[in-house]
């Protein structure tokens, strides 16, 4: 698998594509950006922790404090917004 790593020009679209690829690789199915990952039952909170670590490593951000809540990882859209917000800080 190839992933774009820490490019300064990371766009929301890149984030979304990377996330969709990561999800497909780990859950063996395709996802829409607005689907609730946890409601489907296919994704556990342990996997949510892997998402946290993936986002931190791949986009060079630190997710802590009040940002460390399941709501931020519920959909690809929510994660994309989180990455953009933390990248701007």
């Amino acid at each position, binding site marked *: 698998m190839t992933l774009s790593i820490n490019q300064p020009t990371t766009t929301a679209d890149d984030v979304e594509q990377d996330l969709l690829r990561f999800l497909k690789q780990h859950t063996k199915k395709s996802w829409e950006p607005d689907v609730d990952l946890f409601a489907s039952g296919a994704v556990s*909170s*342990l996997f949510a*922790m892997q998402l*946290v670590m993936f986002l931190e490593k791949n986009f060079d951000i630190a997710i802590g*404090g*009040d940002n*460390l809540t*399941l709501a931020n990882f519920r959909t690809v859209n929510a994660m994309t917004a989180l990455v953009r917000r933390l990248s701007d800080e």
Partner: protein
Amino acid sequence: MTDDQVTHRLGVLGAGVMGTAIATLAIGRGVPVVLVDVDESTLERARTEVAQQLRLAQLMGRLPRTGAVGELVTTTSLGDLAEVTDVIEAVTELPELKAKLLAEVSAVVRPGTLIVSNTSAIPVDEMAESTARPEELVGIHFMNPPYLIRTVEVIRGPRTGDRAMEQVTSLLAAFDRDGVAVGDGPGFVINRILQRMINEAARIVEEGKATPEAVDAVFQGCLGHCTGPLSTADLIGLDNVVDSLRVLHERTGDNGYEPCDLLVAKVRAGDFGRKTGRGFYEHGEALS
């Protein structure tokens, strides 16, 4: 609830699955921890695991996301426990090992320090025999993982003092856990029943009468259990299950507790459950 002013400094003995996760619970609630193990590489792994577990618990809203996190110190020296207010012993479920360690630790800590054993099945009064001050020893049976499961079994031995029970109440309040007090004896409540149930479930699989999936499915579907006995066994660790069964078998003489061949074979093969990636089920890479 009581004694909010008490400042706890916790010593944890053993950086295995339970010791590590108890350290996570404590620091996540702002209680500083000195974690002791004989093996430096085990301690190194524990530091990484505590950091990950803390974030998992925060992510799930089970530990506070903001506020003070307790300091974690790891050491191979029991002498570093001299200043703690409470000690929780969480080493391997081998009676001789626990007895030796409890004797050593009660000689190192100040009199009046609460000593807790997180034993699965050894009677508190049997271990009290090894300590310098039997009135200071209490059993707390934490479930795995303790930073997610609120309720614990609290075991008062016949020689446990009132002061130790007050200290336990204060410690559990600091951890935001709910203790249920039960009497002393092999396996207390949970493991007297659960270990036998796991053993019988494994025997059914051994006899080819049902798959692990089928055993767990009937407990979940018919009785409404969150997880079936063999999933639970994989979570506990089959090594601990076999050790606990032996403790129970030796102390009760009841052959229902004699670990069945399948359990013993899995442990011999190094298949301990989640912590090694395989037990009754495949778990992929080892988690938590």
